[in-house]
């Protein structure tokens, strides 16, 4: 499961596809203090990245993938 929405934490793992952008956006709107766990995330579709950037969601755990981390850091998401 690429997107696992819990009460306060959303776990993003593997490849998070464009289809997951809307559910994530809805969850973040409904859960303003919700945090993201990207530890097992390998790739985010650009649409998902936009959702994270636009909502300014807090990333609780950064990806272990260093390349993805670099991209997220450059956008100020981390």
């Amino acid at each position, binding site marked *: 499961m690429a997107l696992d929405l819990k009460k306060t934490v959303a776990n993003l793992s*593997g*490849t998070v*596809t*464009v*289809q997951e952008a809307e559910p994530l956006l809805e969850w973040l709107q409904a859960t303003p203090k919700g945090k993201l766990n990207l530890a097992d995330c*390998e*790739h985010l*579709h650009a*649409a998902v990245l936009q959702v994270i950037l636009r909502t300014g969601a807090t990333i609780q755990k950064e990806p272990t993938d260093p390349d993805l981390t670099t991209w997220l850091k450059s956008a100020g998401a981390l």
Partner: protein
Amino acid sequence: MKSVLLVDDSDTIRASVSDILTRNGLKAETAKDGKDALGKLNGFKADLIITDLNMPVMDGLALIKEIRKLPAYRFTPVLMLTTESQQAKRDEARAAGATGWLVKPVKPDDLMAVVRKVVPGA
């Protein structure tokens, strides 16, 4: 495992391309024309569709337009198989919703490089 639907009226191309895909750890499903492809997409979730342009029954352009109408396939990458000279066709296909193109004859390395460019984790 990522799945690819390959649409081409040529048996040879279907056999050779799906062979390359399977050997690179992808699941390959094939269809022989556009109509066949739409039927296959009903019971099958493809992460990538590769289609020829000139086919009987329903050609590639019409197929791409139909695919984009399916909610599940709005964002799915679709690659078309073209010959070197079909620049205008490529533009037309891109406008119809194609993501990119492959040039026939397809070399294994080129194919996989392109697949990895459009399917994350392939």
